[in-house]
Structures are given as structure tokens and as C-alpha cells.
């Protein structure tokens, strides 16, 4: 009963601030712009207006429509939502309401859960433009694959929960909304820097960087659901909420609050370390871009010894990027004990005179091989030779037709090929909806709400 009252109060507070209505307005405009550009680009790639069509297999609605459209939410979560979350706490602190609330017969957890629920309601409302974009896409005759669409939304929702929790912690810790906003922006820039610096460097830094919001979102945008990432994002969100709760418990002595915060950080660090060892993931993309062919996966899964790969490429080298995204991502999902080393991870490669530059060394069960190719086919063959000791692979059996697609090398398996979904249609009517109707609806709702409160 009181819990429901609390959520209603927080939702009312959310609607009372102009920040939320401005956010809705901008999210609609941003989503519209992203969606219209994406549909037009997709139509051109599909051969609209008599132009040459791209290979149909390369036309995936996930890459072509969903990810660019959802990109609007990346900006919104990073730059707009924190202010809404900060306001929810900072306003009650500065107005004195929080001192009344601390005396209500409720626990701190009730207050925090209520605020998270209110923010999730805000998130669902903010997703309306995305839902409109999806509805328009389907109305144009576009194709969507539900698992990858839901996975993408789940990724963005986890990112939203983390951002909201961290913003709440900042608002709880900092005196004033402006200080909290500066702290959040600083943290965002910090994660960007970490993400940028860690690429292709390996080790703990790269592992840490894989949990930054930008890196985490890239995984979901590839149609991959990594359990370690989900656990890590949830652990960080819970930690931020816990710290917010400690900071908001004004009646507790400072020493006790510091001790509790330190314990929470240690527990979260342990949880993150454990999460990092969870190597379970699901490839939810329709074109199975994160998986090898079933027969190859079976061969790789049988490898019960450590496979060491040493990549003599610099972080900035495009081949490094290709190898990381197209090969290592899949190998990490498949091989039980994979160790990757990046000797040139910290160099720019501009002045690299090492003769080994460009080589990729493989070591498995006492055998070694050196390759320069970063293509999936060559890598699989190299590993296969190392594992089998050069013996030819037994004749491949046709993989059962489980309805999934494969983009793998010829002869690896007989899974059906991803057909691709070209659609040569313009985004008709979308501009009216996103640039006229949506702002009108938001302004009308805001005016109605303002009138109710006099």
C-alpha cells in the first residue's frame, strides 16, 4: 500500500519536472532523424531509384535499421536521462522533502526501488518513438527478427538501469544537482577514454573496458547476449544504488557510511570478477554472425587444452579490429581455455620495425603455427590442423536444419544461408509523425499536466 503510494509519488515527481518532457521531445526528434536516415540508406542499399543493389545477404534490418534507430537512445541515456534521474533525488534533497521522507515508516530500499521503478516507467514511455519506428518499418513491409530486437532492447534497458543508478548515486553523494551532473559527465568521458585506450591491448584493462556502457552496447548490437556482461551491468547498478542508499541515510555516522560503502565496493568487485569468468553467451542474431558453423563449433568445443594466440598487430590497425570482431569474439564463445596476447597492444604501429608485425601465432598442445591472415576460414583451418596434428578432418556430416542461418565457409556445414532482407522503400509519413505529431503530443500532455497542478 505505502509502496504503491511511493511509486505514485515518484512518477508524479517525474512528470512534474520539465526535464522529463524535454527528454521526451528530444528523444522523439532524435529517433525520427535516426530512423528516417536509416530507412533511406537501407532503401538505397536495396537498389531504390534504379541504383545497384547491395548483395541481399548483407542487408540485415538489425544493422541497417534497429541499431541506427536505437542510437538515438544511446545519446538520450548518456546525455539526457541522467539529469532526469538526478532531479528525482536532488530536488527532494534541496527542497527539504527528503528529511520528511526519512521519517516515513519505510526502509531506504523502498525509496530507492520506488525511484528505479518510476525511472523504468519513464524509460518505457521514452521508448514509444522506438515502438513507432518499428511499427512504421513493419508497415513498409520490413522484416524484423524478434530475438535480436528484444536482445537489443534488453541491452539498452540494462544500460539505462546502470546510468539511472549511477546518476542516483551521484545525486545522493553530491551537494546539488549541478555537481552531480558534472560528476556523471566526467564518469561518461572516463568510460569513453577507457574504451578507446583498451582496444586491442588485452589484459585486465581490455577486460575492464568490455564492461563500459559503449562496449557493452556494441555486444548487444551484434545480436549477442553475454551473461557475464548482464551480470556485470546488474552488479554495478546494484552497487550504485547501494551507495546511493548509504549516502541518503543522513542519520548514520560518517564512519559507518564509509565502512558500508567500502564493503559494498569489495563485494561488487568480487561479483564482477566472478561475472568475468562466466563464459556463457547466446547468439541471438538471425544471421548467426557471432557463431561459427555448427560443425566448426563442435570441433572447437572439443579442444580441451589451452589455445594461445599471440596477435602481432597494433590496436589501431584495421586488421586488429577485424580479427577482434570477426574471429576472437567467436573463439571466446567456443573455446574453453583461450589465451590471447597482444605484444603490440600499446604501440601505434606507425614506426613498428619488428619483423613479426602482422603475424598471428597459434600454440596448442605443444604445436605452433604462424599465419598472417585474419579471415575466419584460415583461422579455423589453422586451429583444426594444430588440434588434429595435421590429420584431415573426418567427412563432415550435414548439420541438422534447426532453422538457423550460417555464413560460414563452404562445405563446413549445410545450414541454410542467411537470405538478407532488402527493402527499397522510403520512410513515408515518418517525418510528419516524428517532427510534428510527436512534439505536439508531448507539449499537449505537458500542458494538461501543468494545468492539473495549477
Amino acid at each position, binding site marked *: 500500500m505505502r509502496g504503491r503510494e511511493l511509486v505514485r*509519488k515518484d512518477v508524479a515527481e517525474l512528470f512534474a519536472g520539465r526535464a522529463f518532457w524535454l527528454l521526451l521531445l528530444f528523444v522523439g526528434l532524435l529517433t525520427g532523424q535516426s530512423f528516417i536516415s536509416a530507412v533511406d540508406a537501407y532503401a538505397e542499399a536495396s537498389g531504390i531509384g534504379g541504383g545497384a543493389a547491395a548483395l541481399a545477404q548483407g542487408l540485415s534490418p538489425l544493422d541497417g535499421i534497429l541499431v541506427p534507430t536505437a542510437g538515438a537512445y544511446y545519446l538520450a541515456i548518456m546525455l539526457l536521462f541522467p539529469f532526469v534521474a538526478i532531479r528525482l533525488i536532488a*530536488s527532494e534533497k534541496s*527542497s527539504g522533502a527528503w528529511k*520528511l521522507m526519512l*521519517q516515513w515508516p519505510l526502509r531506504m530500499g523502498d525509496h530507492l526501488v520506488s525511484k528505479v521503478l518510476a525511472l523504468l516507467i519513464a524509460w518505457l514511455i521514452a521508448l514509444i518513438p522506438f515502438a513507432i519506428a518499428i511499427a512504421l518499418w513493419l508497415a513498409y513491409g520490413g522484416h524484423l527478427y524478434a530475438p535480436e530486437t528484444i536482445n537489443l532492447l534488453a541491452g539498452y534497458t540494462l544500460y539505462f538501469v546502470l546510468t539511472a543508478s549511477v546518476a542516483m548515486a551521484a545525486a545522493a553523494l553530491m551537494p546539488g544537482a549541478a555537481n552531480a551532473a558534472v560528476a556523471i559527465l566526467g564518469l561518461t568521458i572516463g568510460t569513453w577514454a577507457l574504451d578507446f585506450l583498451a582496444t586491442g591491448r588485452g589484459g585486465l584493462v581490455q577486460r575492464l573496458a568490455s564492461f563500459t556502457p559503449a562496449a557493452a552496447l556494441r555486444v548487444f548490437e551484434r545480436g549477442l547476449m553475454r551473461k557475464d556482461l548482464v551480470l556485470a551491468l546488474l552488479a554495478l547498478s546494484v552497487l550504485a544504488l547501494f551507495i546511493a542508499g548509504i549516502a541518503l541515510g543522513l542519520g548514520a*555516522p560518517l564512519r559507518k557510511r564509509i565502512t558500508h560503502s567500502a564493503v559494498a565496493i569489495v563485494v561488487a568487485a568480487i561479483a564482477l570478477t566472478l561475472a568475468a569468468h562466466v563464459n556463457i553467451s547466446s547468439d541471438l542474431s538471425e544471421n548467426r554472425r557471432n557463431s561459427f558453423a555448427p560443425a566448426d563449433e563442435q570441433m572447437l568445443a572439443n579442444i580441451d587444452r589451452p589455445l594461445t594466440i599471440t596477435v602481432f598487430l597494433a590496436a589501431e590497425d584495421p586488421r586488429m579490429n577485424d580479427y577482434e570482431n570477426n574471429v576472437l569474439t567467436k573463439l571466446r564463445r567456443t573455446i574453453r581455455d583461450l589465451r590471447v596476447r597482444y605484444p603490440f597492444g600499446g604501440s601505434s604501429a606507425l614506426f613498428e620495425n619488428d619483423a613479426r608485425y602482422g603475424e598471428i601465432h597459434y600454440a596448442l598442445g605443444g604445436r605452433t603455427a604462424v599465419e598472417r591472415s585474419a579471415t575466419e576460414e584460415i583461422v579455423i583451418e589453422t586451429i583444426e590442423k594444430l588440434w588434429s596434428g595435421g590429420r584431415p578432418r573426418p567427412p563432415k556430416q550435414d548439420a541438422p536444419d534447426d532453422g538457423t542461418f550460417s555464413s560460414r565457409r563452404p562445405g563446413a556445414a549445410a545450414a541454410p544461408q542467411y537470405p538478407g532482407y532488402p527493402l527499397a522503400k522510403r520512410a513515408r509519413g515518418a517525418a510528419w509523425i516524428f517532427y510534428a505529431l510527436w512534439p505536439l503530443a508531448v507539449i499537449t500532455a505537458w500542458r494538461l499536466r501543468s494545468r492539473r497542478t*495549477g
Partner: protein
Amino acid sequence: MSVVLRVSRLSARRGRRDVLRDVAFSVLDREILGVIGPNGAGKTTLFECVAGVLPRTSGTIDGEPLFYVPDAIRPWPDQTVRWTLELNARMFGARADASLLDALDLTQLLDQTTASLSKGEAKRLNIALGLSVPRPILFLDEPFDGLDFRQTRHAIDVLKGVVRGSAAPSEGALEAHTTRRTLVLSIHQLSDAARVCDRFLLLDHGRIVGEGTLDELGGNLEEAFLART
């Protein structure tokens, strides 16, 4: 009268500064206790430590449940007065007393946002927020600060009515859950304090320097205070 709240050896620090030092006092059932002291004496800190919204370094607080209304707050500035009052009361399973709102001249302000209230109106709202909570003891920090002399006299009548269980003059009877309270008020205007309080606690530099009724303190609060500090 029985003791409803007992505070023993309460101390508090802000940074390196001792703000309260071994403060001890008792609150009697259905009295109006005035905590008197100059700015910086530690009145607000004392109230917030007793209410549990500020940490204390030592001391114990035993007694019946209390509710504390801070000074100069304007809670939920974008919401209406009605919304604010109802929310705070509902959290304790109560509801705002219409007669009380009449008595505090809040009825005509119910649909205004709390941000739009004048200082005096906001102060009356804060008194109503406290009185809407069914807790036997109510701590009000500077309840008359910002009220003009007419409003102050009116608010004093209302508070006395709340403690005695009688109606405020010219208004309807207050509901049972609003009345029969014990009040602890922090007041820096000595004339207001003398008019409303039954007993006084004189606070200076975080220490209690005197305690008693007006008669026990010599009949003049100002003289009593100056003599002790």
C-alpha cells in the same frame, strides 16, 4: 505529567566542531516545550539528531514516536499543497484534517504549488504537515519565523488548541488524531516563546544553560538567558 521523551548525554560534531555537548532533557506529556537560543546555538542540530536525520556522536533517546518538521523547507515544489499534505499524511495511514487546514488558512491554497507559496504560507503548510502526522510528539523548527504578528498569534492559538485538544478560535473542532500532542518548538523570538510555551530549554553553544517554566526562570526569558551566558 509523565515523561514521553528522554534525551540523555546527546553530543554531536560537525567536522571538527562540537555542535552539541552532553545535552540532556525530558519532554512531558502534552506540554509545549520551547528550545530557546541564539542563531548557532545548536537548536536545529538538536532537533535533527533527536529525529534521526543527523548522526550523533553519543547519547540516547528514549520515548514515544516523534515527527520533526525542519525550518525553511518547501517540499515537492512542483506539486500542490493538497498533494503534499495528503501524501505525507497517507504515509502514516492518516489523512489531512480539514478543520486544521481551515484553522491554518490553507483551504484556499490547496490547489497551488508549494513553490508558489509566500514564506508565511509555506510556514503554515509546514505546521500542517507536522500536525497531519499521527505521532504523539511533534518537533517544529522555528514555526513562527516568516509569519506576521497576526499570523503568529493565530498559529499560537492553533498549536495550543492542538495540545489542549480544544478547537482553535472561530474554526470547527479539530479531529481527534490532530489533537492531544506534545510539542517541542525551536524559537528564537523570545516574546513568541513566552506566549506559547509551557516550559523552556535554554541552549547556548551546544549546551543547555537553563531549563524550567517562565516563573522558574525568573519571569523574563531575556534576562534569564543573559544571566546564564
